[in-house]
């Protein structure tokens, strides 16, 4: 991505938020066509985009937004009513804006096709008025101001006082004045305000303020909207001085700005306006500030990553400190005592610090779930299905990087549910179900992990059909017959799909195996449940954070290995009678009538000196994706949170290992990848 100017970056960030807001508002508006607040919301969104695009010199985008804004004005004024077609059109407009933004960061091209198409549609809706946007933000030579008031319309008086550092911050009052010009005929007077004498004059400080007399057919709201954009830190006021007769009756009359009207550029010193101009009139309604008085701050995720690394290292160092203090205590009891106390206090602070940093990185799953509404809506429309998406637990929080990595798999699973799961309304009615299919996204915390459930009430997965398909693909031997739950598991096999043609929605070659791999890459687990005719539930279990792992440390010979606690069910020392050998299935451990495969890690990893007799050692029972296994270890050493170090940072992905961590003595211990080993 090319290096972007700070202003442009800010604009892009703001647009991201605006676009999400727009989609939300449009979807609500679709359900509630009379919801005026949403129309305003959408209007403000496009208005802001227009203004911002102008400032960062994205002319085409600004012009486009201006056209859409025109359509929205008609919606606001009631000239047009909100219809599903208009909603679709507006959603398409957000897509066009998105393509513009992607083009700016070099991630795609502007969707000119859709742009032209939507512009034409807007033109048609506005009754043949060509959608040619007026020029934006270009300094134009001013003609002599026409002092005659408009035949219809109102007269407004504006007072524009800017923050003295406005110029230093890169602000340009002219832009605001030009914007106002767009709304009608404006006469502006610059007042010397705090202009000092020449010797003490700082040209970068804004000393002037302006009063503007604006003849416009537009309502007060429109003017407020323009001001809103420039509002931050500045002090603006706008009053209706005289307007269409029915409004004026309610307003106090104010002496109009009577100094000789002079247009830009600001004139030499003028006598100050009559004090009466500042007469109390019904206050212009409080203007919403565009950027809320920030109680929040945008932070680059890289910074958070670095912070987290540092904290992780502090935790590791602390563990080592602890060990050293233990050693010291053996030599000098008194000193050891002192240090011990300190180390404990220190540990408290470190854990607190770690917790807080982790908290900072948490984002609500809402950001992930909400865009799904649009996905579902678009799909349902296109494929003539009726699908309702319900969301629960959107405020459940998860680490930002997990949230980002979750996006792809989530979209895929939802699309699968819509494509393969939910039947057409006719099929559903025949099956005695309501014609509208349900997809439910549910998120909640459970035992220190986040569970994300995607549930549909569609046709479910047929274990027999799966097996048949697997046999056709050579993934399953002809005579092999699996149990239902194992058959379901085949869905995750690479290269699997139950549709002969590749569906345009589910994509090419991106199967459930990719989803499973991506979730496992985050040290999460995937579980699938299904009932034919009733529906399917996919359950993703994810750690709260990628950086720290609750783990069980085990010894294998001289080596210490780390097992993610998420996968551990129990551990026990099997009796010799519990260990069985079955032909064709290897060694098994029988636990409460369940037979679990025994995994001899010492063999797989080539570790010398490990105990080979299970009856003299321990097995740790682990579970992954509906399957349990028993891992043979010598001893369980400890259970605690460890800091995950990525192997690929300096090496490669190693089969069987999910990462590494540094133990108290400073040595490296590998984290087992349960998914790969079992």
């Amino acid at each position: 991505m090319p290096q972007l100017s700070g202003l442009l970056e800010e604009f892009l960030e703001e647009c991201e938020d605006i676009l999400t807001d727009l989609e939300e508002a449009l979807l609500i508006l679709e359900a509630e066509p009379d919801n005026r607040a949403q129309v305003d919301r959408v209007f403000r969104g496009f208005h802001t985009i227009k203004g911002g695009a102008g400032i960062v010199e994205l002319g085409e985008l600004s012009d486009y937004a201006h056209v859409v804004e025109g359509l929205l004005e008609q919606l606001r004024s009631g000239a047009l009513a909100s219809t599903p077609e208009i909603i679709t059109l507006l959603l398409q407009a957000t897509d066009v804006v998105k393509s513009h933004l992607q083009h700016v960061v070099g991630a795609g091209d502007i969707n000119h096709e859709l742009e032209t198409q939507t512009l034409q549609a807007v033109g048609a809706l506005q009754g043949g008025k060509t959608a040619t946007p007026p020029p934006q933000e270009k300094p134009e030579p001013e003609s002599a101001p026409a002092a005659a008031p408009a035949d219809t319309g109102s007269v407004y008086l504006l007072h524009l006082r800017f923050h003295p550092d406005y110029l230093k911050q890169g602000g340009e009052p002219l832009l605001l004045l030009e914007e106002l010009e767009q709304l009608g005929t404006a006469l502006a007077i610059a007042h010397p305000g705090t202009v000092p004498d020449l010797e003490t004059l700082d040209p970068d400080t804004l000393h002037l303020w302006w009063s503007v007399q604006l003849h416009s057919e537009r309502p007060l709201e429109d003017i407020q909207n323009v001001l809103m954009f420039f509002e931050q830190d500045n002090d603006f006021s706008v009053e209706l001085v005289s307007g269409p007769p029915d409004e004026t009756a309610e307003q106090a009359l104010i002496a109009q700005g009577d100094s000789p009207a002079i247009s830009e550029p600001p004139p030499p010193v003028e006598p100050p306006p009559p004090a009466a101009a500042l007469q109390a009139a019904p206050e212009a309604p409080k203007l919403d500030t565009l950027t809320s008085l920030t109680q929040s701050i945008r932070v680059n995720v890289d910074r958070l990553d670095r912070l987290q690394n540092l904290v992780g290292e502090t935790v590791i160092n602390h563990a080592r400190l602890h060990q050293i203090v233990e050693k010291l205590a053996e030599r000098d009891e008194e000193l050891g005592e002192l240090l011990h106390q300190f180390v404990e206090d220190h540990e408290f602070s470190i854990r607190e610090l770690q917790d807080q940093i982790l908290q900072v990185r948490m984002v609500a799953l809402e950001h992930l779930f909400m865009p799904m509404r649009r996905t579902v809506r678009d799909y349902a429309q296109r494929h003539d299905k009726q699908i309702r998406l319900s969301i629960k637990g959107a405020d459940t929080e998860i680490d930002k990087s997990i949230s980002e990595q979750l996006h792809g798999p989530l979209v895929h699973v939802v699309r699968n549910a819509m494509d393969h799961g939910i039947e057409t309304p006719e099929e559903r009615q025949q099956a005695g179900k309501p014609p509208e299919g349900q997809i439910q996204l549910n998120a909640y915390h459970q035992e220190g992990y986040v569970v994300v459930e995607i549930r549909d009430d569609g046709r479910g997965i047929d274990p027999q059909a799966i097996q048949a398909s697997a046999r056709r693909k050579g993934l399953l031997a002809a005579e092999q017959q699996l149990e239902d739950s194992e058959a379901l598991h085949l869905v995750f096999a690479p290269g699997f799909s139950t549709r002969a043609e590749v569906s345009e929605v589910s994509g090419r070659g991106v199967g459930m195996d990719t989803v499973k791999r991506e979730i496992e890459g985050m040290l999460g687990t995937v579980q699938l449940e299904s009932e034919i005719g009733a529906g399917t539930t996919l359950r993703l279990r994810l750690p709260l954070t990628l950086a720290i792992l609750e783990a069980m440390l085990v010894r294998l010979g001289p080596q210490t290995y780390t097992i993610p606690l998420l996968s551990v069910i129990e551990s026990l020392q099997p009796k010799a009678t519990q260990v069985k050998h079955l032909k064709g299935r290897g060694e098994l451990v029988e636990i409460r009538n369940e037979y679990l495969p025994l995994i001899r890690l010492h063999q797989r990893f080539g570790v010398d000196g490990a105990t080979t007799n299970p009856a003299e050692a321990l097995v740790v029972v682990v579970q992954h994706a509906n399957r349990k296994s028993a891992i043979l270890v010598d001893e369980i050493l400890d259970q605690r949170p460890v800091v995950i170090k990525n192997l690929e940072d300096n090496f490669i992905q190693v089969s069987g290992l999910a990462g590494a961590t540094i133990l108290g003595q400073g040595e490296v211990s590998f984290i087992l990848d349960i998914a790969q080993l079992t």
Partner: protein
Amino acid sequence: MTENPMSLPTPEAYQPSNPLATLAMFDEQELEVDLEAAYGGQGTQLITFLLGEERYGVEIVKIRELISFPETITPIPGMPKYVAGMINLRGLVIPVVDLRLRFEMPAGEYHRFTVVIIVQIAQKCIGIIVDSVSDVIFLEDEHLQEIQEDSTNIDSEFLKGVACVREEMVILLDVERLFSPEELGRIARHGTTLVEGN
């Protein structure tokens, strides 16, 4: 290289009895090390090390640091023998490769003087176990010669050339090739076959 490439205070000016004053002399001078003027040509600085009987060199810019042989090396399952294992470098988990084993030489004895050279290739830090480290030398480009096949113990694929420096032959090691994505990929595949399933 007979001229003094750095302008240092003359030894007579040192005051052994007053070390601070001696150090202060250095502070006052602006030490300039003009490599090009000193060595009179284009070239690279190398760190040389011994591997068996032969002397090798690695460009100093690729070297992050030198460490003594680590206390613990954790072996990585499924890796070829020349991947000794992972170590903890002040919080970084990095792999260490035994260069002798990598080039199919007999294994060496590890002791206090065994050095691990930490190289930085792309964004990765990787350690190389060598017998011992010798001098830093400056190798002028024009002195670098092509390798004759079979003239050295190790595969010429990973060598950039040879040079004669101070009457000794130095073989220039191409660490970037040694740890290229292709090479690392080969190592990865080696691991896969061993570990996954019985």
